[in-house]
Each structure stands twice: as structure tokens, then as C-alpha cells.
């Protein structure tokens, strides 16, 4: 286990370097000169050249990349072209809102996804199972932003049960108020992952139920509930962990859409604003932070997987 842990931690370095290279290249191979963008279209060529030199844009690309990585490692993500504030501060401010939204969605999609999946496996072949199958297919066929819009129209505009936009009321700011605002976005974001988790859980539980040791457990007369909990689910849920981990990561991406629909003040809305304003340092910073988080979540999932299923790190 320790060797596996060390190897995975070492692999993290080239992976994060690769991620930063991709982010760097995307932003630097794009058309449009940041210096021109900052100064406006009618700046003199001399002024543009001067700013390019100041920003380090005149250096060859590899030199720029190395310098950029050097700054990132020290926590300097540059300054936003739009607000002139350090990108690090902008990202940090929004980070908690996205984390809260993602965590709330995980709390919905994981328990409900597993419960529905197990229910489908147990009721395999019945109308209940068919209904759940249809429901999960619907879940992955619905665009997140449309679910959000429909929920918003129904539950806040028509029924008035929940607020439609934002994270706090103008007067509020208490944690109860934030939770109240959190309900619709969290349910929206959770829906597709819930469907995928339910799906995988059903398949792997069905497979576990077909194993010989489950048959043995039944044959020696153990009650069904005990067989399910002690024998079938113990092993049946192992593959689910991988999917849950992947979904947690994908939720970070899906948050961009959900946040846009509900005007949730997180990294997603920050990112979209940055893109539309062509604020490259901001976009770079936000993408880099979310991608790093995603890599770390995936690592944690792989490690917990190896911990639960010792076969993994012996391969």
C-alpha cells in the first residue's frame, strides 16, 4: 500500500505539469493579443510593444511557460484584466460557493443514487425496475441547465417555495438563508450524477447477487436483508466508488452550467464572465484551480479504492 501511495503521489507531478501546459497553451495559442485587449484597439504600436515586454509576452513561449509555472507555484496567478485584482483573490472568494454547491449535490446524488440502484437490482425484472431504468435514462438525457430552468419556473416562479437566483437574500446572509437558496441548484446539479450512480449500482449489485458466495449465504438460510448488507453490497458497491469519484469531479464542471442558471456566485459564473470579457488571466486561473481540484479528487478516489480492494495495488 505504501509503495502504491508513493507512486501515485509522484505521478501527480507530471500530471499537474501536463494540466498546466494544456491551460497555458490554450490561452496562448488563441488569436488576439492580450496587450491590445488591455490597451484597447486604438493604442499606439509603441505602447503595445512596451506593455508586451512588461507582461513578458515578447519572450519565447517556453520561457513564458516556465516563468508562469514559477509564479503559480508561489501562489501568483496574475491579475484580472477586468478588475485589476489578483486572480488568486478573485478565485478564492468564489471557491467556497462552488465547493458548497458541489458538496450539497454529492450529499443528494450519492445516497439516493445508491438506494435507487439497489432497489432496482433487488426488484430486478419487475415493473419497478423498468420504471427506475427509464428514470435513469431520462436523468442522463436531460441537460443540466434545462432541469435548472424547469425547477426554477415551477418551484420559485409559480409556487414561490424557493428563491430563484443568488446565494443570499439582500437582507439575509445567515446560513439558513444560504441553505434555502442552495436547494434548487443542488438538486439540479445532482440529477445527472444520481442517474449514473443508480445505474452502476444496479449493474454491480445484480452481478454481486449472482455470485456463488451469495448463493451459499442464502442456502445456509440467512435472512435476505442480512445477505444483502453483509455479503452482496460489501462487494457490489466497490465499482460504485470509482463512479462516485468520477462524478464528484464532473460535478465541478457541471457547476459552471448550474451556477449560470441560478446566478450562483461561484467559480463557474466567474469563469463565464471572464470568458465573455476576454479576461485571460482570470480564465486561466479559474480553470487551473478547478482542474487541480479534480486531479486531487481523482487521486483520493483511487487511493480509497486501493484501500478497500487490496487487489488494486498488487497488480
Amino acid at each position, binding site marked *: 500500500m505504501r509503495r502504491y501511495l508513493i507512486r501515485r503521489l509522484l505521478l501527480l507531478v*507530471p*500530471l499537474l505539469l*501536463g*494540466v498546466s*501546459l*494544456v*491551460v497555458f497553451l*490554450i*490561452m496562448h*495559442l*488563441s*488569436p*488576439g493579443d492580450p496587450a491590445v485587449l488591455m490597451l484597447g484597439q486604438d493604442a499606439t504600436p509603441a505602447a503595445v510593444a512596451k506593455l508586451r515586454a512588461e507582461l513578458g509576452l515578447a519572450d519565447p513561449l517556453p520561457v513564458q511557460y516556465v516563468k508562469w509555472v514559477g509564479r503559480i507555484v508561489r501562489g501568483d496567478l496574475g491579475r484580472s484584466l477586468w478588475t485589476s485584482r489578483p486572480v488568486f483573490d478573485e478565485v478564492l472568494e468564489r471557491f467556497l460557493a462552488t465547493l458548497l454547491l458541489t458538496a450539497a449535490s454529492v450529499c443528494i446524488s450519492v445516497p439516493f443514487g445508491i438506494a435507487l440502484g439497489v432497489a432496482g437490482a*433487488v*426488484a*430486478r*425484472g*419487475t415493473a419497478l*425496475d*423498468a420504471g427506475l*431504468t*427509464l428514470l435513469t*435514462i*431520462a436523468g*442522463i*438525457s*436531460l*441537460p443540466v*441547465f*434545462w432541469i435548472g*430552468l*424547469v425547477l426554477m*419556473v415551477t418551484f420559485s*416562479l409559480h409556487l414561490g417555495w424557493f428563491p430563484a437566483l443568488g446565494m443570499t437574500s439582500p437582507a439575509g446572509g445567515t446560513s439558513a438563508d444560504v441553505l434555502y437558496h442552495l436547494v434548487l441548484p443542488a438538486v439540479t446539479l445532482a440529477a445527472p450524477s444520481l442517474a449514473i450512480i443508480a445505474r*452502476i449500482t*444496479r*449493474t*454491480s449489485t*445484480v452481478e454481486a*447477487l*449472482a455470485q456463488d458466495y*451469495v448463493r451459499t449465504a442464502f442456502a445456509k438460510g440467512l435472512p*435476505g*436483508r442480512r*445477505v444483502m448488507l453483509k455479503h*452482496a453490497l460489501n462487494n457490489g458497491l466497490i465499482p460504485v466508488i470509482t463512479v462516485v469519484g468520477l462524478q464528484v*469531479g*464532473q460535478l465541478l*464542471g*457541471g457547476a*459552471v*452550467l448550474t451556477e449560470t*442558471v441560478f446566478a450562483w456566485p461561484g467559480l463557474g459564473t466567474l469563469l*463565464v464572465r471572464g*470568458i465573455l470579457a476576454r479576461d485571460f488571466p482570470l*480564465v486561466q486561473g479559474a*480553470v487551473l484551480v*478547478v*482542474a487541480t481540484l*479534480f486531479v486531487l479528487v481523482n487521486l483520493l478516489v483511487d487511493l480509497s479504492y486501493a484501500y478497500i480492494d487490496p487487489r488494486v495495488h498488487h497488480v
Partner: protein
Amino acid sequence: MRTSTPVSTTYSFAIPRAPQDAGRVRRRAFTARGKIAIGAVGVGLVALTLLSAPWLPLTDPNQIDPPQRLLPPLSPGHPLGTDELGRDLLSRLIWGGRLSLATGLAATAGALLIGLPLGLFSGYLRGATELVAMRLTDVVLAFPTILLAIAIVAGLGPSNLNAIVAGIVVGFPFYARLVMGNVLSLREREFVLAARSLGAPLGRVLGVHVLPNTLQTVVVGAAIDVGAKIIAMASLSFLGLGTQPPTADWGVMLASGREFVTTAPHLATLPGLGIFLSVGLLNLLADGVTERVSGRRDASWR
């Protein structure tokens, strides 16, 4: 495979507290064949409607008619009403659907065309090729899919074509990994070894012996992937990063309809319904196909 496969008794006793009635054969409520039939007919109908758009009696989807703006559905001359500029909603839905589905298909096809050869060569040649392919896909997979797509479009500039490029970049690792895994086991099989020992050139070994044996997996993978790609492309349009207005696709229509959710909710709900219907039917079809091909009665999904 028969239409209704009886659930074997090995399973039926695994159902807790289920009554044991050995004589009765339980029928599957929803068979693979049923899913394929409903999915295929539905997808066919959607495709037929969208493809026949030029011959349908539709008004120009971009023709503005401000006095007739925001008409409700079932208005004379406009079966589904009009949008905020008086453009016919039915016409925009059909033409927009063409673009949405075509964009999703293009992104899937592009990802397949890059991922399939990459997986084929890296899995067969192994060594340095495999290492490069693995690290390349590792880096792409280190991003949440939609986030990387957004970043790429942010770099290249918002447009329908750039959205497709983004879709291809984020999508090719799925196929590369899928094919690679398949080829890694195929290359050790006797018929491949036999072909090699008979002196068949690389192209022949791969093209005649390896490739055909990976196609089944690829087709199943692609069937599941298309729906996801259609949604991803619509998401980019929704964020203003894909197709640019006034050209309509379902994502664009949803985004502009958002502002009228209180007064004219059908502007945003109908395009969403379009996505749901077409992707849902595609997924139903894919689910049935996966179930049949895998030979199991339970499709495993990613």
C-alpha cells in the same frame, strides 16, 4: 436471443423476501428488444423530421416579425407560437435541432476518427507509442469534461466550429482508451499471432484481424457517447460559447428563452424538450444495444 428471457431461479431466490413460486416464469418488464424498437423508431422519426426540414412548409427560421412577437402556441400561422422577435418557433425548433444534432454528431465522429487509430496503434505497438498515448489521454482526462471544452472555446473564440473542435479534443481519449484496452488483449490471441507469423504486414494485421474485432465495442461506446456530446454542445451554446445568434440551435434558443420564462415559458422549455426527446431516445436505443451485445441482461454503463 428471445424476446422475453425468463429470470433464472438463481436470481429469483436472491431477492429478499420475494415469494418462492417456482412454477411461474417471471417476465422481464422491459426487454432489450423493446428498448431497441422504441429507441430506433423514435430516433428515426426525429431524424426524418429534422432531415426533411427544407421540404416542410416552414417559414424562414430567422425571419423577424416584431408585431407578431411572443405569440402563444397554437396561434394562426405559428403552430408553436413565436419568439421575442416574432420568429416562428416551430421552424426554429426544427432548423435548430438539425444544427444541434449535427454538431453533436460531428464532435462524436471527430473524436472517434482520432481516438480509434490512436488506440489501435498504441495498443498494438505498445512501447513508446502506448506511453505517449496514455500520457496524452491522462492529461485530457485530468479535466472535468465540460470545463476543458469551455476553456478550449474560450481560447479559440466562441463559434459553432470551435465548439466541435473542443468536443473532439475532450472526446477522443474515451475512444482511444476503449480501443487500446481491446487491442491489448487481441494482440495476444492466436489468430493475430498466426497472421504475424505468416508475415502479414502491419497494415493487414491491424486492418483485417484486429480492427474488425474492436468495432463492436466502439459502436456501443459511440452510441452512448453521441447523446452526451449533443448535450455538451448544447451546453456550450447555452453559455454563449457555441453557435452564435441569430443562428438557432437548441442551446441558443434555451439561453435566449431564459429571459422570458415568466411571460412565455414555452420559449425555453420546448428546445429543452427537443434535447431530452432526441437524446433520451438515443440513450434508450444505446441501452438496448449494449444489453444485447454484451450478452448480459444488464448493460453496464460508464
